[in-house]
């Protein structure tokens, strides 16, 4: 098959685990004083659990599961807005499957669907546009979420809708951007991180340059990584090398997909359609300045927020929820007071339990299902 399979090769994985152990020894890292690496992207969290990497890596290495799961950081107020739009009888509301179970303050999209709203899961925003073409008498709204990986796809879909004169399609933008998010994490008081596993697919769009400040200002090494198990292990090994050398640099482990400069055409589409929002709410993290995007005035007629008057209210996270501490790595998922104790994948309270890439759901499902209970 493809050259891709080499990155799932267990023998390569084993030799990398040994090399990692050697570098950890050389660094003098121990279980009590581990090297702490944050994987920014939920995809890496998923790979680490999916392949059980933490079960073979030495305890002198600790992973902090970062905030890079766009579903996990969806605030309740935004879900409420989506539910309100979806409940409009003119609307066919389309979404990626990920968002269906995220709790709003009243209900999730899954519950709204059960209550009669016309909500459909799609694989691609292009499929939402096709629904709009086929249903000219209905309003088709697409729930756009995700980082810069997904943003070009919704931007290009809006541009397509404009080019084809499709008037009954609109986009609800809950897109967020990676750099302000990273800054917010780096500025978290009390957070100690020795290096970052960088988001591979965001980087294929934005390239490597935007990360320079992490090396220059914050003096942390940063390795953009692929998502196969060998990719993750290799990037850990690379980071340990840079930590040992005291050389914080931005490196690219995922060169087969990520070009140095990213994808210029994808960025051009994003820039054409979206502009920064001054403030953006994150579940668990509060408001982060300029961390989200909205649709530019030029494309106002494709902006679901403007087409449907939605509340736009900010709804506070549930009080007992400690998603914020887990997101910034201050708490391990199973140390949260709600973990397995009212908050589970069946009945998520915090968003980290909703997406299978959320640190809590991953722990619950793959690692520590009974750790809290035992």
């Amino acid at each position, binding site marked *: 098959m493809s050259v891709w399979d080499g990155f799932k090769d267990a023998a390569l994985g084993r030799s990398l685990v040994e090399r990692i152990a050697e570098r950890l020894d050389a660094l003098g890292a121990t279980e009590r004083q581990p090297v702490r690496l944050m994987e920014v992207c939920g995809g890496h969290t998923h790979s680490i659990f999916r392949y059980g990497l933490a079960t073979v890596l030495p305890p002198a290495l600790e992973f902090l599961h970062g905030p890079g799961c766009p579903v996990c950081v969806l605030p309740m107020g935004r879900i409420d807005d989506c539910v309100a739009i979806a409940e409009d009888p003119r609307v066919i509301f389309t979404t990626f499957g*990920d968002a269906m179970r995220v709790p709003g303050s009243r209900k999730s999209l899954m519950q709204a669907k059960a209550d009669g709203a016309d909500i459909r899961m799609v694989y691609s925003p292009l499929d939402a546009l096709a629904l709009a073409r086929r249903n000219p008498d209905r309003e088709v709204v697409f729930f756009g979420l995700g980082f810069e990986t997904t943003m070009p796809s919704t931007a290009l879909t809006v541009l397509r809708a404009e080019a084809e004169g499709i008037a009954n399609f609109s986009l609800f933008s809950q897109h967020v951007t990676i750099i302000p998010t990273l800054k917010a994490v780096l500025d978290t008081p009390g957070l100690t991180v020795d290096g970052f596993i960088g988001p591979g697919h965001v980087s294929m769009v934005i390239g490597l340059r935007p990360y320079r400040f992490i090396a220059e200002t914050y003096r942390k090494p940063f390795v953009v990584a692929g998502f196969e198990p060998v990719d993750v292990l290799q990037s850990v090994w690379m980071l340990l090398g840079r930590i040992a050398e005291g050389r914080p640099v931005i490196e690219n482990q995922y060169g087969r997909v990520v070009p140095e400069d990213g994808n210029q055409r994808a960025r051009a589409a994003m820039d054409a359609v979206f502009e920064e929002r001054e403030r953006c709410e994150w579940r668990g993290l509060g408001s982060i300045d300029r961390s989200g995007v909205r649709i530019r005035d030029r494309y106002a007629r494709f902006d679901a927020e403007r087409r449907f008057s939605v509340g736009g209210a900010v709804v506070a996270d549930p009080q007992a929820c400690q998603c914020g501490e887990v997101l910034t790595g201050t708490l391990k998922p199973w140390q949260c007071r709600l973990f397995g104790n009212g908050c589970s994948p069946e009945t998520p309270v915090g968003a980290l339990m909703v997406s299978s890439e959320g640190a809590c759901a991953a722990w619950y499902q793959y690692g520590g299902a*009974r750790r809290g209970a035992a």
Partner: protein
Amino acid sequence: MNAITPLRRRRLSVPTVTLSHGGGGTAMRDLVEDVFVSAFAGDAAAPLEDQARMDLAALAAGGDRLAFTTDGFVVDPLFFPGGDIGTLAVCGTVNDLAVGGAVPVMLSCAVVIEEGLAVDTLRRVAASMADAARAAGVRIVTGDTKVVARGACDKLFVTTSGVGVIRRGIEVGIGKARPGDVVLVNGPLGCHGATILAARGDLGLDADLASDCAPLNGLIGDLLDAAPGTRLMRDATRGGLAAVLTELAEASGVGVLIAEEALPVTPAVRGLCELLGLDPLHLANEGVLVAVVPREQAAAALAALRAHPLGGQAALIGGVTSERPGRVVMDTAFGQRTIDLPVGDPLPRIC
């Protein structure tokens, strides 16, 4: 209930089912006789009664216990590569009987039809049921038909119940797995679930996929002949392999350790799972047998499965342990992870 009887053949003259076909009058009789009786009756000439009647002595000759089960079937789309709701309704109930060590004997069939359904659609489903029953060696002996208003059900719901006879000496049960036993499956995982997801069409996927829907009673018969000490069997339907393994680990109070490399998964199912962020362990199957057998009978069991047309890719996927009772752990070749039940229906995801 009406026992199925070949009568003077009545023909339906309309192309779609209407509420009048559920009204108990001549329209309903036409529908039942033209569509169902003609498909199912075969050479069995039962009297026109509200129930099927069976000879106890003949049943008792096949074993010493009766097995009885029921299952409702809803699927969208009704027809998909590898089968349809009719095939599912027969195979599902046959398999539920067979995994208990029973030889399936007869089934009932009740249908709830949404008004407006094409009569030809119903004919195709009935023909599939008849074919599947023939393949499984069971008879459909009684049934019922209801028609509901548009919107009150989705096109067609089918419920089948089944009776089988459990062979003397066969004692299988979900709580009987013991440390040292091995876990076998007869073939690739996730084909049915993946096929249905792709066949719905809303994901825009075109795929080389077909449901694994098949009656497992023949295969199970061969397995029990070769490995009479078989501890337990399950067909891994909703919730997939993960659900069966979790259930047996909890019920037997044992740990289960499986090896990811040993799991049979077709390239297309793997591709669909990667594309949609799904796990083949969570996808539904309709022809996957999971069997736990004592280690000393493992080789014979595996050989018997592989010799059957439905077991060509049978595999030993793991073993039962005394460690971590109640938990299922998978060796991924990189490390180990816990396998848990899926939350609900697996949803396609992008992140």
